[in-house]
């Protein structure tokens, strides 16, 4: 069993597991942090853009060099193994599927993608949004010169230190998204899906987002758990299923919190108080965020907070090409929600209170800043919009609009991007910046408790988890300490998982099972000899009764017609035990063989049957019958000997 690691990003994983002749890709994460090296789209503030090199693809802006082209993403490694051999892709949550079109399209991929319905629907929305953001401001230019090693070496950081730049690719098209998503097969939690009869996969609730799942990959004797983006906090999704992870041989652990020192609840409080403070002072609040996920919790939190903070008249805007869909979809996945929200649906009431915010006109959503929004827009207000990298999407416009006033505040809630890097091209900035990243994924404390409970034999994890973060190297509590130590991986690692398969499941057909005669060899242990034909089809093995042999021909060595397929005869059992001399002699006597001369040897006895001119050599571990051409006698003697032996 092998694990190929195609992504080095611990929360946006992409691994391939080879297990029992199946090739399974675990997640398809797209590392979007690469876009921080690009200039924001669209470019409106030419004031701060200067040419730096003769290559016009690089520009300096606020003292930092950026690539001026369509932003590019860092793809999973595509050279480590032939992607067309992948049988299935398992998706754990909608953030971890953004590279899907790069993998399923133009690589010869012919397999199936498995995901839950919310993962598929919301994943589609996020992809649609990304494509929409890119296509709104098309840039013909695709910058490649700077990727030349010689040139990149001479660039100032962080461009100089960017890795794998040749794998960076532009965004896919909507057509590619549709084609990729058409390969998705929907699954429900705890559904058992057979892969080629060899392996069974099953998604488990992971508690992180709507429809997010961990996966169990198992055969009858081996179990691999894949844990990705899980949460034990009570937010909107169904709670995490922990007990099903027990008894794993290998547990692959990815997607821990990116903010191990930030408490999500504390961050939420800070978010609310900063928001209220800014509004009261007459400023606007900008919240760069994804259109699904934590935003549901933010809105719910605000729903309770608005009245008490006297913000009843402040307009809240949610601007995204998929804002409406995201809000609508969140209300229809009752099965995937936590218990409290499910109960609301039974009433029937929408599970999320943002329905009420919309109804009472407190929250308004628009596909973009153009159209209705421009005429209905009132300030001061709160705007939720993407993309959290501040490189594209409507957020760029609000940075331009509000960046110069110190009354306004930008509050970062998404943990995926460093807020300083995100803000770099907008410097100098008068607007207030508040960083309260909300990451509900497992922290190191929670995960070590979890592992203690589920007790996997081996843990595999990204190497980042095996040492404290660079910036806090003294915090030994911010890493995984396990016995045996976890097996770390990095991008392009190929791990041999410590696994030895010893058994396989076969089914004995009832007809054959009925014919078995178990005999007790020692107390509590019975055995039966099975003579059968093994049938293997679709990786399922059955044992069937042997076909009846044809009547034996008269000669000793049969001359068989060559064309005839070799007939399978029941193999004879192995023998065990010893033949006791006295009892054997008595038995011979009973069968009319009385003239026996017994001779003692080093290992036993030789019996000379004088009338028959036959020798029988009796030893502790063997019997040898030497007898000339006398078939009936030999058969008799054989049967007499067999009476004393156990057959296996």
């Amino acid at each position, binding site marked *: 069993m092998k694990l190929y690691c195609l992504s080095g990003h611990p929360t946006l994983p992409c691994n391939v597991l080879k297990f029992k002749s199946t090739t399974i890709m675990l997640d398809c994460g797209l590392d979007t942090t690469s876009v921080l090296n690009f200039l924001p789209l669209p470019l409106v503030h030419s004031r701060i853009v200067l040419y730096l090199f003769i290559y016009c693809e690089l520009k300096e802006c606020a003292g930092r060099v950026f690539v001026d082209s369509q932003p590019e993403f860092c793809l999973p490694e595509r050279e480590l193994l032939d992607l067309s051999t992948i049988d299935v892709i398992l998706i754990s949550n909608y953030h971890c599927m953004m590279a899907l079109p790069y993998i399923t399209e133009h690589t010869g991929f012919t397999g199936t993608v498995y995901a839950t319905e919310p993962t598929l629907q919301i994943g589609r929305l996020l992809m649609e949004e990304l494509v929409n953001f890119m296509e709104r401001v098309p840039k013909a230019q695709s910058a490649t010169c700077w990727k030349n090693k010689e040139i990149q070496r001479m660039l100032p950081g962080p461009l100089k230190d960017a890795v794998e730049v040749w794998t960076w690719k532009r965004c896919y098209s909507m057509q590619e998204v549709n084609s990729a998503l058409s390969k998705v097969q929907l699954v429900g939690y705890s559904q058992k899906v057979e892969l080629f009869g060899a392996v069974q996969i099953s998604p488990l609730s992971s508690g992180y987002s709507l429809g997010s799942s961990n996966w169990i990959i198992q055969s009858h004797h081996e179990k691999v758990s894949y844990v990705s983006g899980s949460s034990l906090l009570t937010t909107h999704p169904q709670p995490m299923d922990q007990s099903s992870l027990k008894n794993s041989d290998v547990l692959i652990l990815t997607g821990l919190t990116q903010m191990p020192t930030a408490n999500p609840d504390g961050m939420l409080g800070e978010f609310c108080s900063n928001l209220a403070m800014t509004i009261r002072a007459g400023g606007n609040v900008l919240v760069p965020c994804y259109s699904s996920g934590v935003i549901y919790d933010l809105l719910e939190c605000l729903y309770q907070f608005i009245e008490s903070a006297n913000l009843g008249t402040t307009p809240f805007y949610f601007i995204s090409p998929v804002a409406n869909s995201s809000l609508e979809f969140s209300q229809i996945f009752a099965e995937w929600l936590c218990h409290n929200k499910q109960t609301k649906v039974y009433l029937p009431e929408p599970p999320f209170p943002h329905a009420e915010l919309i109804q009472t006109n407190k929250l308004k959503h628009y596909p973009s800043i153009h159209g209705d929004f421009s005429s209905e827009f009132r300030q001061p207000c709160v705007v939720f919009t993407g993309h959290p990298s501040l490189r594209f999407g409507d957020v760029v416009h609000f940075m331009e609009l509000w960046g110069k006033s110190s009354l306004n505040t930008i509050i970062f809630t998404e943990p995926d991007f460093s807020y300083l890097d995100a803000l770099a091209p907008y410097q100098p900035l008068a607007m207030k910046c508040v960083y309260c990243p909300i990451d509900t994924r497992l922290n190191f404390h929670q995960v070590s408790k979890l592992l203690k409970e589920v007790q996997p034999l081996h843990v595999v994890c990204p190497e980042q988890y095996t040492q404290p973060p660079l910036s806090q190297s003294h915090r030994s509590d911010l890493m995984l300490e396990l016995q045996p130590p976890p097996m770390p991986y990095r991008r392009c690692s190929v791990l041999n998982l410590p696994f030895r398969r010893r058994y*396989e499941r076969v089914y004995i057909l009832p007809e054959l099972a009925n014919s078995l005669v178990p005999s007790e060899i020692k107390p509590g242990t019975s055995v039966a000899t099975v003579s059968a034909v093994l049938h293997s089809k679709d990786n399922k093995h059955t044992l069937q009764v042997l076909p009846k042999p044809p009547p034996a021909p008269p000669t000793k060595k049969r001359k068989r017609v060559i064309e005839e397929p070799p007939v399978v005869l029941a193999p004879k059992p192995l023998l065990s035990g010893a033949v006791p001399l006295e009892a054997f002699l008595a038995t011979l006597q009973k069968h009319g063989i009385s003239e026996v001369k017994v001779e003692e040897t080093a290992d036993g006895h030789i019996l000379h049957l004088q009338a028959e001119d036959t020798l029988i050599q009796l030893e502790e571990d063997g019997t040898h019958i030497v007898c*000339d051409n006398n078939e009936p006698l030999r058969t008799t003697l054989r049967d007499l000997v067999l009476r004393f032996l156990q057959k296996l």
Partner: protein
Amino acid sequence: MPEIKVTPLGAGQDVGRSCILVSIGGKNIMLDCGMHMGYNDDRRFPDFSYITQNGRLTEFLDCVIISHFHLDHCGALPYMSEMVGYDGPIYMTHPTKAICPILLEDFRKITVDKKGETNFFTSQMIKDCMKKVIPLNLHQTVQVDDELEIKAYYAGHVLGAAMVHIKVGSESVVYTGDYNMTPDRHLGAAWIDKCRPDILISESTYATTIRDSKRCRERDFLKKVHESIERGGKVLIPVFALGRAQELCILLETFWERMNLKAPIYFSTGLTEKANHYYKLFITWTNQKIRKTFVQRNMFEFKHIKAFDRSYADNPGPMVVFATPGMLHAGQSLQIFKKWAGNEKNMVIMPGYCVQGTIGHKILNGQRKLEMEGRATLDVKLQVEYMSFSAHADAKGIMQLIRMAEPRNMLLVHGEAVKMEFLKGKIEQEFSINCYMPANGETTTVTTNPSVPVDISLNLLKREMALGGTVCYGDGFLVSSEQALKELGLNEHQLRFTCRVQLQDPHSDPDTLHRIYTHLKSVLKGYTIQHLPDGTVMVESIVIKVSSSAEDPNTKVLLLSWSYQVTFLRC
């Protein structure tokens, strides 16, 4: 031999009070727990004394599964759990769990508040009963206990309707509940994978019907409604609040829109709005088209259909009224029916099946004079139309499901005996499987023939084809004989045979042996024959040696030696 037993306590050769007991692999499961619309006495509920005469329900049953929210499938649930007494798990899908208590409460109100019956379950009992419910998701494998697992499949029929696959070890049963094999305006078609259950328990409401295309039926329906409206008549459509009602509303809504009609359409009872809200929240359970477009346009927000008030019934002019319940056995639909029955311009359209004993059933059978409570009679002058819009599978659909699931045995419930008999014949003929149709209280026993799972050592499995292995029963491991001996700490006993054959050959010993080798090679094709350097020839595991006789060098003695395990010799 292991057996599976199926006993209907209700719905055996009958429609109504569905309740089927299944015993499989030592587990007892109750499938549905419904009431009978046609009765007001004890026969209204399944006969639980079948179980309780031997002890409490909780001890006997491992779980109860409810297929969908129709009262003939869940109406007896609070009675069973709270009054007879059952504390074990009850499984149903999320929409069923949401809607079922509302219908139960409705049913309770009609029975207790309107008819004044006592000794009936209370609102609190419904609530307590629902606390025992564990929601099921589609395709989720739910482990009821270590051995019993259940899995729900989409059944169409009504929002949240499910078929269940029940499995213990390698034995399994599928119960369909009510299902629909053709997608309609708001629901998808039932689907199940090739799970090859030992028994498929199917409803058979429309066992003998092969329905014409749905489009024709819809056109017919719209034509009738339209004609009636044109001549100023009132149209009553008795429905159940959830299910066909939404289907017909969508149909009329689009028709009114297209034809630009002005006559009002009403929907009785306060449930409407609420009911439609359920459809909006459980949109994932509707069909592909509605799910795809729900963000832009929610099909369950109606423009032309308004809430009904009792006083409207006397308004002049044409109107269409959807009223509950669907079989005209009580409630608002019956009240309106009484008001309108005397006018031949009016029309009642029965869009679904009516249980025996209900007024719906009577007028469909052509009865024109009805005896009402208090000896009054009612003359039925209005037109009575029947259009099968109930989303049940017809004969073709049932056959289609059998092809999908490939059961080893078939068992019919939820249908009329005569019709079942016909379908049974057809199934047995077409699929060559046994088909059963037990009456209530009658037990059908099917013996199953499960294969025995064992674990085989991988080494052994890799040796191909014929294998001599040993099962150690204790752990159920299949290993090679050699390994079994080793693991059991036994020594192997070799049994060998040797035979001398004399023949005349003038050649030297090695030459003789080589001649034998060449000869055997030409005769015994397909066997491994080796000439070994130590002066022996091996045919498979038979050893042949040659030596000259001491007296006569031309007489050669052939020593043939083989072990007991050689298979192609007769000894």
